[in-house]
């Protein structure tokens, strides 16, 4: 297929920038554009060669001191994840207590009492403070659903759904500390997934509305930042509950991680130029939780002594660690650090292979645990495939085989999962962020 002059110019410039070709060799590639392409390439070279403009000598010598004298002292940032999570939980509790008066409960209560046929406005207030397992918890959820129905703008509905999801997190934290039953946890986790799903749907609806891109981006930012923190919070609480209950936390983590990746995927597709803006100001992405030491394979401190549980937790954390490795690959290739990128891909590939092999071992020992991990791994494989395909479009032709290598490794992992579950890989939780490629 013939390239346009703009494409030929861009390709020639890239070849020259990488030092692979000179102007004459580029012109040989596109003889049809001969003179015009030559003039433009020579002009570009002149610009690069004569761009040695410098600020005045006075500015160069004095400005640094002037700038440093203006810098306000910064508050040292607390990088301890556990502390951040504790603070977040405290903030959630404050948010929760502050939310109550804002929700126009009077109007809603009257409506609910009529609908549900229960008497006494006090019930609505009492229900609002309930948690899974309480008699009034069902009413609390119905009130929330009603409030969502009465909210007209998708943006407000999404924010409200997010606030309700965070209530579920508070409930999860509360019942985990007081001897939770599986049924109660399941109820809270289902509620969380449902609320996140609702927020996702509202974001999708806002995105589909023309002229609402900037509001959608702002909402995506809030959702993305919240989901990042949610998975950290859930991961932290998960380490405190007995092993049989951890499966519910794994499901909640899958919900938040999948939601987060889907937002990134949607935004890199819809607004490829604004991808970096999805989470400005939010917490750093993909912070691993107690990642095992990759060199020694030492599990996190909190891992229980049961070898099967240890393996499941180890796999779970290593899947989260894959996100970090992928971010590393993206970073190297987009900054044209190809050698480092190749090394990162080899590391990524190795981690995928070991993970798939360990998952096969786990499946032979504990099918339930393996199901949960497979669910998470499958979602990660799908999202990573999508991200790598997009990365491939942005990098020079010569580097694409390395990304293809990583994509092949993901295909192999997918095949391992299919072999493990010949009747179909377990489905993700019912939420508005379907796992995998659209």
């Amino acid at each position: 297929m013939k390239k346009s002059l703009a494409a030929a110019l861009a390709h020639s410039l890239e070849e020259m920038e990488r030092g692979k070709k000179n102007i004459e060799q580029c012109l040989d590639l596109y003889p049809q554009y001969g003179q015009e392409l030559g003039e433009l390439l020579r002009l570009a070279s002149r610009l690069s060669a004569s761009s040695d403009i410098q600020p005045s000598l006075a500015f160069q010598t004095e400005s640094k001191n002037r700038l440093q004298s203006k810098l306000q002292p910064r508050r040292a940032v607390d990088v301890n994840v556990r502390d951040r999570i504790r603070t977040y939980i405290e903030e959630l509790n404050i948010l929760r207590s502050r939310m109550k008066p804002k929700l126009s409960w009077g109007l809603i209560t009257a409506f609910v009492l009529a609908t549900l046929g229960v008497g006494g406005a006090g019930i609505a207030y009492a229900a609002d403070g309930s948690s899974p397992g309480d008699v009034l918890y069902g009413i609390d959820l119905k009130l929330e659903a009603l409030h969502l129905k009465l909210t007209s703008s998708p943006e407000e509905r999404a924010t409200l759904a997010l606030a309700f999801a965070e209530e579920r997190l508070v409930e999860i934290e509360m019942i985990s500390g007081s001897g939770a039953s599986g049924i109660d946890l399941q109820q809270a986790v289902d509620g969380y997934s449902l609320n996140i799903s609702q927020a996702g749907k509202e974001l999708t609806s806002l995105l589909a509305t023309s002229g609402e891109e900037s509001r959608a981006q702002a909402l995506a930012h809030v959702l993305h930042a919240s989901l990042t923190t949610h998975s950290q919070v859930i991961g932290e609480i998960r380490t405190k509950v007995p092993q049989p209950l951890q499966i519910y936390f794994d499901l909640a983590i899958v919900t938040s991680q999948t939601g987060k990746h889907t937002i990134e995927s949607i935004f890199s597709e819809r607004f490829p130029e604004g991808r970096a803006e999805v989470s400005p100001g939010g917490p750093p992405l993909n912070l691993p939780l107690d990642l095992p030491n990759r060199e020694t394979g030492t599990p996190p401190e909190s891992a229980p002594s049961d070898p099967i549980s240890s393996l499941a937790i180890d796999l779970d954390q290593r899947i989260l660690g894959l996100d970090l490795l992928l971010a590393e690959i993206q970073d190297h290739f987009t900054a044209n650090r190809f050698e480092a990128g190749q090394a990162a891909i080899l590391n990524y590939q190795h981690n995928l292979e070991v993970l798939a092999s360990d998952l096969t071992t786990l499946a032979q020992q504990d099918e339930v645990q393996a199901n949960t991990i497979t669910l998470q791994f499958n979602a990660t494989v799908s999202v990573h495939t999508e991200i790598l395909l997009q990365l491939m479009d942005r990098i020079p032709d010569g580097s694409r085989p390395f990304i293809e290598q990583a994509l092949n490794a993901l295909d192999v992992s997918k095949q391992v999962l299919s072999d493990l579950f010949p009747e179909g890989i377990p489905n993700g939780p019912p939420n508005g962020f379907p796992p995998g490629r659209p």
Partner: protein
Amino acid sequence: MVDISPSDTELIRRAIAGDTDAFGVLYERYMTTIYRYIYFRLGDARVSEDLTGTIFLRVWENLDRFQPDRISFRSWLYRVAHNLLVDRYRTQKPVGRLDDFTLHDKQPDPEHRLIDNEESRMLARAISHIKPEYQEVVSLRFVSELSHFETAKIMGRSEGAVRVLQHRALKALRRSLGQAAKKEL
């Protein structure tokens, strides 16, 4: 020789923790390239110097927001500069004065230096006559020597759009240079 200077990531980590010296190293590392980028957009040395300082102050204030896993520090810095210039274009007309500027003393031979200076001056003048978005793509791609990808990120456009834009910008610059040459004749 092995490069033992600290990486951007290390310096940013220290700067976030409040180390103004680390930020000073980052400033020295990028001050000239940011100045050049602004100079080619505004054509006024004094204003470009002031804005360079403002950009680094803004960066300091927002360091917490920087996400190294999403964007390189250099691209982020240019993005902040781009936003500041967009704000400036919204509120004020470009200065377009093209006053004296200092050139790096790369060419030791005075005759060659004179020719180089004159060529840079002519190019800068021609750039100041093309559309702002063409100025920006020329400045980022050829003066700052950023890739298509980085330019796209900074300008908030797709890479495809940047490829088309740079073609149009170079054509416009060629025309502008032609007109300037005619005037001088």
